[in-house]
């Protein structure tokens, strides 16, 4: 009756969530001026501690084997820990960008999200240099959700984790300091569509429960072989749950939120969510598909292939016509989702490792790229630095202004484009290898054509950055340091993943162990 709880196994998630709760308490009691330093400290400490805990659990699991936790609601296996590790690495990198206030001493977040933009209250807070420090606990809550998502061993936990990761992100999306209305509308769109997809997800859970009489993955999987009849429930259930997951990764036709939200959300959050959500959602998708769906590839093939092909094509084609860098990166993320899906749906063991590696490479580069975006700013007529300059033209001559930044951005773009010696290439390679191994060579063929097309828009940006003269409507501001750290780490990591991917490949290869 009373489940045995292995607290050690829960430690990584509990550390982050405990820190988030602590953050809320700090918000309640700490004086306004001291909140930011405290929150930043808590955030970094928690993420780092959780990372350490994940590493520790990894060694434990390697030594003692996988296990189920809390009566099977969570699963601690190498895959879980690797996914959590990737979430934490992305989260930690993103935290650097989130915490940075740049030389303007204004973070990316509204001084007070509740204050009406342009109201005297807001001006007052801005002048006093006050930030909305609730951002940090919210980020930590989202990270908690992201960590639990791939670890979920039953559909209920999966659903809760989905919401825990989504809800803070909805709120965070609405908190941009500048262009607040766009930000809020993005949040609304994200929210409505997110809730909409959650409903599908839930209906799918309900059908799977109806089919099998259990929400535990292993029992649902067992039921698929035993239960006769009611197949429609199983198929429809899996399809509906997949819709919810595909929404989270931004696969077509569930992608329509992506460009708007990427554009509207505060840029550090965009980077965070682009990296973290994808890791979490693909992690969950792998566990869900690989545990429940084996034996039904044939039934799902049409659905999945359609989605994958559409995702890759829409991501590339629409990405080409974008004029806003955040939207461009959004469509690129859609295309990448398609590439990862090839690995995920290969139903090969190598597909798991490939997905994880791809997500790590993509996540790191994404956080870095959005970090760069935070530093390129518009200038008004009087020379005051205002919001982010997100039109592609703003990047003209970046190499002349800030060569280092431009080179870092180049590294990220090369990684996105899948040019060798970057992490993105190895990711793509392993993903395609898994796809071909799984017999999906037509998909891989489309994928390579699509990635050639995506290269077009990445290199258009490179042309602007390196081969075009800068104009004086934009400027590049200096960060407080933390964004630079994030960008530098991300760039180094991207190259390291491309040049010496061996150890990481081995790690993710070891992580391809799923405990149902």
């Amino acid at each position, binding site marked *: *009756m*009373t*489940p045995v709880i292995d607290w050690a196994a829960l430690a990584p998630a509990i550390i982050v969530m405990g820190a988030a*709760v602590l953050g*809320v*308490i700090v*918000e*309640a*009691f700490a004086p306004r001026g001291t909140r930011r330093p405290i929150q930043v400290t808590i955030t970094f400490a928690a993420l780092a501690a959780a990372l350490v805990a994940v590493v520790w659990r990894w060694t434990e699991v390697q030594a003692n084997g996988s296990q189920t936790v809390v009566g099977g609601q969570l699963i601690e296996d190498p895959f879980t820990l690797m996914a959590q590790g990737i979430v934490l690495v992305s989260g930690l990198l993103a935290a650097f960008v989130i915490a940075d206030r740049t030389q303007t001493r204004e973070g990316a977040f509204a001084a007070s999200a509740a204050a009406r933009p342009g109201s005297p209250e807001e001006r007052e807070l801005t002048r006093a240099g006050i930030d909305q420090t609730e951002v940090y606990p919210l980020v930590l809550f989202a990270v908690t959700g992201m960590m639990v998502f791939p670890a979920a061993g039953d559909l209920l936990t999966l659903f809760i984790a989905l919401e825990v990761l989504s809800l803070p992100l909805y709120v965070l999306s609405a908190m941009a300091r500048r262009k607040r209305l766009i930000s809020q509308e993005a949040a609304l769109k994200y929210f409505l569509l997110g809730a909409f997809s959650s409903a599908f997800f839930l209906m799918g859970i309900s059908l799977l429960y109806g089919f099998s009489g259990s929400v535990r993955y292993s029992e649902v999987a067992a039921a698929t072989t035993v239960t006769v009849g009611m197949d429609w429930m199983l198929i429809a259930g899996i399809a509906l749950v997949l819709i919810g997951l595909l929404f989270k990764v931004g696969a077509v036709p569930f992608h329509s939120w992506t460009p708007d939200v990427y554009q509207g959300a505060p840029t550090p959050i965009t980077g965070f969510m682009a990296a973290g959500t994808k890791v979490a959602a693909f992690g969950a998708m792998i566990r869900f598909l690989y545990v429940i769906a084996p034996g039904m590839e044939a039934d799902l093939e049409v659905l999945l292939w359609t989605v994958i092909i559409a995702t890759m094509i829409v991501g590339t084609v629409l990405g080409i016509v974008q004029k806003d860098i955040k939207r461009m990166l959004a469509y690129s993320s859609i295309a990448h989702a398609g590439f990862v899906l090839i690995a995920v749906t290969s139903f090969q063991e190598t597909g798991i490792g490939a997905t994880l590696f791809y997500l790590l490479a993509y996540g790191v580069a994404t956080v870095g790229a959005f970090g760069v975006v935070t530093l390129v700013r518009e200038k008004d007529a009087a020379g005051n630095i205002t919001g982010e300059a997100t039109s592609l033209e703003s990047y003209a001559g970046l190499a002349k202004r800030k060569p280092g930044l431009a080179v870092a951005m180049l590294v990220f773009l090369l990684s996105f484009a899948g040019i060798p010696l970057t992490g993105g290439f190895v990711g793509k390679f392993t993903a395609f290898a898994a796809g071909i191994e799984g017999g999906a060579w037509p998909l891989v063929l489309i994928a390579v054509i699509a990635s050639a097309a995506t290269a077009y828009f990445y290199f258009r940006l490179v042309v602007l950055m390196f081969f075009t003269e800068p104009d004086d409507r934009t400027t590049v501001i200096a960060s407080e340091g933390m964004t630079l750290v994030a960008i530098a780490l991300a760039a180094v990591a991207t190259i390291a993943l491309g040049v010496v991917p061996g150890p990481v490949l081995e790690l993710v290869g070891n992580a391809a162990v799923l405990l149902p």
Partner: protein
Amino acid sequence: MNPYTPLLLMIAIAAVVAVLGLVGTGFLGPKRYNRVKLENYECGVEATPNAGSAGRFPIKYYLTAMTFIIFDIEVVFLYPWAVSFERLGAFGLIAVLTFVFLITVPFVYEWRRGGLEWD
């Protein structure tokens, strides 16, 4: 016997009584047309145009509604636990206490940040 059938019966009877009352009064009462009678009551002042649809409430009402939703959910969780307290045992107690604590944290937060002030 299904214990819910009488409930439906009760609700049905109550609804019938309520509707009958309203219908009956239509026959019983007089009908004298008067244009002003059908206007909104505005204490003798000229009626405010679109008075009802302006929807300008203090933001506090929304905040109260949101807080309520969260606490209502807490109550929803407390009832089943309270009823099966003995059977759920120490684990249930600790779980619910954790839950209550987690709900209390935002409550304290809201309290401290002035979310419960009506000024």
